[in-house]
């Protein structure tokens, strides 16, 4: 049997306070799509960055076609034929497609000024056509959709004559159509003998596209699944090391009859109809819709981030004036924002700093921080939410996505929420933390909190909501009760198909 194309054996890597990888091995064959899955913090990205030459391993051997190689730099990896496509695309937005593909390797007349523009485009053309890229190679990247930009990255990899393409969460910002297109491209690459290492949280995608799955857990190999063994349950079992009997947890109980939060003709932009909505205590309302449907904008308006043009917000039947998040917070309306890294957390600061930030006014004595009470609050949230960290003095940036999200939640839970708005609460969160967050939401609902959950994950919407409200192009497209819920019904409303 010929040796596999790329193999890594006994790879270990540690960062301060974290053993990211321990004795991890992986083989990749020619023309194979190998998916690497695992919870956040399981070490997937670290392993890929080692293979892509971004990090150096502390221990372990990497072999290319059976020969040991040292990959210490990104260009060494590229010379071998390994290209890593990061989750956040690295394109120069002001350059055109061809310019990006050949960035740093432009054909010239010999001097740095002798850039041969026409040849650039001519060289780019066949590669782009092979990927089914429909725009001109002279288009500026800034004008492309995210899906098209992804293709440019792949085209760049192909122009480097890559034999292994590593894709880190390639579909996280793609539409369904773009995702399908990416699958076609991956299948084509496979046919040409190019191997793909595919990292994703979305197990459904992995089921669709992967030939083989390697599962990592806590920085170690947790198991491997052959094509015929791949299933959602099998992957989850290996990822969390236990059966998740009930992933979505909803206990039956009645919502209070009277609404806690009422939005009456709330309006935040001209030319769009106002929105009216009611949330009762103890119910979880799912807010579904496509990206750009105005869900986040609605949440931000209620929370006082966006200026409300007209309409009323009522809490327990009384109008509240919300001009700034301070007003919303005072009323007991809290928002867990969409982008926790830029909106939810002060990343360079400690867990304690972040957990107490919204409650400092209650933790002061003569304007000074009451340190003892602050520590007690932080420790309690850490225990209650099972935030996994060496200490509350740990920097939030070093936590995994799931634990970061728990910190954002913890910031509000110590303040007795009346209304909790969750915008994509489990995006980039690992399976284990996900189920913990679901359990928490269920518990909060039982305590009478009104929860509005914005989510693009249909499974989550269907699994957690008592009723679902769907938005389409800035307006409410419809509402579905528990009995009417189905993926099709939600999608029909979200795409504006249903009248």
């Amino acid at each position: 049997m010929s040796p596999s194309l790329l193999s890594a054996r006994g790879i270990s890597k540690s960062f301060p306070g974290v053993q990211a990888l321990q004795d991890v091995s992986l083989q990749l064959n020619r023309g194979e799509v190998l998916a690497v899955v695992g919870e956040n913090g399981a070490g997937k990205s670290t392993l890929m960055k080692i293979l892509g030459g971004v990090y150096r391993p502390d221990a372990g051997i990497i072999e290319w076609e059976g020969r040991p190689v040292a990959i210490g730099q990104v260009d060494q990896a590229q010379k071998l034929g390994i290209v890593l496509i990061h989750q956040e695309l690295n394109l120069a937005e002001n350059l055109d497609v061809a310019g990006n593909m050949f960035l740093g390797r432009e054909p010239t007349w010999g001097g740095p000024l002798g850039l041969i523009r026409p040849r650039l485009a001519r060289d780019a053309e066949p590669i782009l056509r092979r990927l089914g890229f429909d725009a001109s190679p002279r288009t500026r990247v800034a004008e492309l959709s995210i899906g098209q930009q992804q293709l440019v990255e792949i085209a760049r990899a192909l122009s480097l004559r890559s034999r292994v393409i590593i894709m880190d969460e390639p579909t996280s910002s793609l539409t369904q159509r773009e995702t399908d297109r990416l699958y076609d491209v991956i299948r084509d690459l496979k046919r040409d003998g190019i191997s793909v290492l595919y990292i994703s949280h979305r197990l459904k995608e992995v089921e669709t596209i992967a030939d083989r799955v390697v599962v990592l857990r806590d920085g170690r190999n947790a198991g491997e699944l052959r094509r015929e063994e791949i299933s959602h349950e099998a992957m989850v079992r290996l990822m969390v090391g236990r059966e998740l009997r009930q992933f979505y947890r909803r206990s039956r109980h009645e919502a209070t009859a009277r609404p806690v939060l009422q939005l009456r003709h709330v309006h935040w932009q001209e030319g769009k109809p106002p929105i009216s909505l009611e949330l009762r205590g103890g119910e979880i309302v799912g807010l579904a819709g496509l990206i750009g449907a105005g869900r986040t904008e609605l949440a931000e308006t209620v929370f006082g981030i966006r200026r409300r043009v007209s309409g009323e917000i009522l809490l327990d039947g009384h109008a509240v004036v919300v001009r700034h998040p301070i007003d919303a917070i005072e009323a007991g309306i809290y928002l867990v924002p969409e982008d926790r890294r830029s909106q939810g957390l002060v990343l360079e600061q400690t867990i304690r700093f972040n957990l107490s930030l919204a409650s400092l006014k209650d933790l002061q004595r003569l304007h000074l921080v009451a340190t003892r009470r602050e520590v007690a609050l932080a420790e309690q949230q850490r225990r209650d939410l099972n935030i996994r960290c060496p200490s509350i003095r740990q920097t939030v940036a070093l936590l995994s996505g799931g634990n970061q999200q728990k910190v954002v939640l913890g910031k509000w839970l110590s303040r007795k929420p009346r209304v909790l708005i969750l915008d994509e609460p489990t995006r980039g969160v690992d399976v284990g933390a996900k189920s913990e967050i679901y359990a928490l939401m269920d518990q909060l609902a039982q305590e009478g909190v009104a929860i509005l959950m914005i989510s693009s994950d249909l499974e989550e919407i269907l699994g957690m909501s008592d009723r679902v409200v769907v938005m389409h192009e800035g307006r409410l497209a419809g509402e579905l009760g528990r009995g009417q819920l189905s993926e099709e019904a939600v999608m029909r409303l979200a795409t504006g198909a249903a009248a």
Partner: protein
Amino acid sequence: MKKVIGLIAFLAIIYLLLLAADPGARLAANHFNLGRRIGLYGIISLGAGMLIITGGIDLSIGSVVGLCATLLAMLLRGDRFPRFPFKGWLFDQFNAGLDWLGSLVNFPEHPWAAILLVLLVGMGIGLMNGVLVTKVRVQAFVVTLCGLFIYRGISRFMAEDQVKGLGNQFGQLKSIFYSSEAIFGLPMSLVYFVGLLVLATVFLHWSIHGRYFFAIGANEKAARYSGVATDRYKILAYVLCSTLASFYGVLYLMQENSAQPSSTGNFLELYAIAGAVLGGCSLRGGEGSVGGLVIGTSILVLLPNLSLMLGIPSALEYTVIGGALLLGAVLDEVLRRVGQRSR
């Protein structure tokens, strides 16, 4: 934390070299002079540092110092302010306002009122900067760069480009701000600085408001989403910075006995920012400490002295400071990367 220890070590080395190089440096008089200057620079570095921690910047510090020192000198001398050489209702009103203000208080007889007014002017400038940055959303760099030009121009116009000296008057007042036999024989500017340090430490490191400063500097959006009144705190930082600059103007006039409208305070904003950065503040915001500011300022003051004693011509003073700052920044970055690599 490690950064602060490195800075302390660097400061200690400079200090010991200074003592070793020159017996004159060991004299109490030299220490007095060093302390005086550390106190002076420290006061503005403190203001600039707190502002930088919130992610802001102020380039108008030097011109505010010049304006306030000149204004105070003129008020104390009882000088008549020049009229605006334009006609029209608005300018007439303005001139009438100046007259009214002058008739309201006899400033030469009530010097404290003059000092209070000058501090209020500083506060007002800070308020304006803050409002322009937060509400009108002009970049801080631009707003305060314009201030640098505007206030310098106003002080020169106001004083008709003449040096404004106090002569032998106000001896008692001067002794409050500058006396060689003051508390424990310490220079008064250092005494004020230490007092401000205590206040700043409590404010920045112990109070909830200081927490907000750091949160805003590190991630303003997250601070807003957590219910911090970000605009208000940013304005406060500008006010603190400009008010401290005007206080520096008062101290300067009392110590130097005169203000030169075209040059007093020149380059001070750069010293203030350099001191803050040397002391571990990041211009990205969210990083820094009062202790670091003290050390940074001290290095800034000691370094030119040392270079003089080592025979480096005084014309190279700026070069030495700039070089040290650059070296510090490079070392900081390199060490950080080595630290990451060894992980």
